[in-house]
């Protein structure tokens, strides 16, 4: 059965296990900056906002890339980067409406969540249940979008306050 990743900000305790786990499985080391999932932490509000590729339906990142380095899997929506073609310009980072793409701190190549090929490692580490990998249903697709909207609304509030 098809699955999806539900990401609920209200259950997030900002522990950073997800980012650490991601850097471990992808690069054999620990570095939150190398997590394909990022937690934007607002310490004074005890808030953590998870940011990651949502495998969205509009994928503006693909359009934004001037070199055609990004491609999308039709079935899963997963975005891949061709490191040979990528010029590390960062246009995809700017284009992502969910703030889900970052440049690798060493190579500047975009790092994008690939759901670990169908078994997201971060979800196993999220004991509070803010990140869960569940069977896809129509209701849960709606729920995923609702949770995402809540995160994005909070992201905008937080960024506006900072500015």
């Amino acid at each position, binding site marked *: 059965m098809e699955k999806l990743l539900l990401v609920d900000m209200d259950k997030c305790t900002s522990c950073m296990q997800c980012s650490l786990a991601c850097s471990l499985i992808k690069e054999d080391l620990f*570095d939150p900056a190398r997590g394909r999932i990022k937690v934007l932490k607002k310490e004074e509000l*005890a808030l953590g906002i998870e940011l990651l590729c949502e495998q969205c339906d509009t994928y503006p990142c693909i359009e934004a890339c001037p070199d055609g380095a990004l491609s999308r899997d039709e079935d899963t929506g997963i975005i891949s980067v061709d490191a040979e073609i990528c010029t590390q310009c960062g246009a995809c980072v700017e284009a992502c409406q969910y703030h889900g793409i970052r440049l690798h701190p060493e190579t500047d190549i975009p790092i994008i969540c690939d759901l670990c090929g169908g078994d997201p490692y971060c979800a196993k580490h999220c004991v*509070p249940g803010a990140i869960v990998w569940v069977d896809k249903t129509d209701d849960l697709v709606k729920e995923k979008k609702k949770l995402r909207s809540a995160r994005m609304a909070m992201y905008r509030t937080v960024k506006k306050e900072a500015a």
Partner: protein
Amino acid sequence: MFGHQGKILHVDIGKNKIWVEDIPEEWRKLYVGSRGINAKLLWDYCKDPDITWDDPRNILIYAPGALTGTTAPASGRTSVTTVGCTTGLYLKSNTGGHWGAELKFAGYDHIVVHGESDKPVYIHIEDDHVEIKDAKDLWGKDINETDRLLKEWHGEESRGLYIGPAGENLVRAASVHCSLYHAAGRGGAATVMGKKKLKAISVKGSKPLRVKDPKKFAEVAEEMRELLRADSGAQGLHEFGTAGSLAGVNELHAFPGKNWQTGYTENVFPITGQALNDGGYLKRRVACFGCTIGCHRYSAIDKGPNAGIASGGPEYETFGALGNGPGVIDTEGVILANEMCNRLGLDTISAGGVAQWAIESYERGVLTKDDTNGLDLGWGKLPELLEIIEAMAFRKGKLGDLLADGLKIAAEKVGKDSYKWAIINAKGLEQSNVETRSAKAYALAFAVNPRGNDHLMTETFAEFGASPEAIDVVGKITGDKKWASPHFTEFRAEIVRWHEDCYEITEALGFCVFTSTAAYGVNPDNMARLYAAATGIEMTEDELMLTGRRVCTLEKAFNVTRGATRAHDNLPWRLMNEGAASGPLKGATNSQEELDEMLDEYYALHEWDNETSWPTRRTLEMLDLKDVADYLEKLDKLPKE
């Protein structure tokens, strides 16, 4: 390097000097990290007893654990070590939050601050770039404002550690705050920072951490994570916070009220973790770095005259010290008092302990309105409690100055038998909110604790036998599960010593002690395996536990240089002489006789001298601490064998 970053950052704020040193390889085997290596550093720099807490030669050491920054569950904690100001003895205080991991990512395992500045400064670290900066715009600012300014100057992703007005004013109950709502509260490390005029350490790091065997590491970390996920204690901590167990403790008549005059409170619900959930005060469950439990709270008041008040907590201890203790059985009341302490940089345990003593002293006529800034003190009076806290933090008036010096000095100053209700032992730290009269391993652990009588150098919760895991731990230590009951005095020495070792290695690795001595997911066996996977340093469970013993003995030896003897290992007068008010052990005390019996066994088990309590040369040498024995001999503080 694997596991550790391998670096100690030294900053001399008196001489304006900064240097970096490698962690000697041998230390990683003998002392492991954090609390352990801190103890070694404090010994090396400050063993001379002429170095008092306020001497510029005193150092402050801050260190995340050997595994902080990894997916080891709940491994993000930081130890702060110095010559403490409250007791004048060894002080280790430990904090959660996200600052320690950030320091690790900046490339350092330890920061040592030397010297004393003549004007307020703060330290800013961004990887290899370390600067001592002018803190004139931070001095006088509260914790929240300090954090806001540091983030404005150094970025939203920087992490701060700081003191508030209380630390600046050399209040002994001052606490070091870390990532806003977390604190190394106990013993006055913040007062040492205030004396050195060090306001804050801001840090931002970008260096990854590597472990020797990532696959093996992930396996053992997963084992710990799944044990904690299944543990009912850990689940309760996430759901209701540390204060979730208060109603149960109250049922045992072990929830100290009115300055340890009561153990049971009718209608206790408003000052429990459950009340935060039910009343809608709980806004978020919060985790320290890398913690899969998330026991910390973020609470706020939405309605009424106090709408908008928000802070971290309140924790178990705060509902005790600022709730049940002063008789404020009111959720919002404790939230207000807690927020004020967090903002001004006060340890809620010591602030509450001092406040309770002041209230009782006033009730007994030992303090009058002339001493209390005109306040009519009494149990259950919230406005007066808030006034006490503010007076203390700013040393306002006669009351503020009296209370700011802590119970040890205040009770001496006031005299008139007021030591009888000052809940401190001979070392002088305000006791944490534990009823030791009905929990005998706690009583022993509190008495021998090198930093004073509290539960944060070791915790013997297992003696209550509250879960199958706890009963197993007691069975493993004593050989018989029947000893898992807090009313026994037998085998308490064994239970305490095992927990000392376990607690020490837990902290040395950066784990939260809840994972090994309150909930049960982390234990000496899986810690040894995880440390080996991280560093390549292979140790058995027993060898790792021995490093804990080494550090505890070194901490003890440090106190011996300051004149500590067996007489310092006692309990507050009230608990030794007045019976518990109610409950299964109604009338029970921690009598000197009972304590002596446990102390004899405890010192024998440690192979320390029974009369003086001092470690012997043989014991020190068995623990690779020959240089410590040599130094104690020079001071004539080595027992005759």
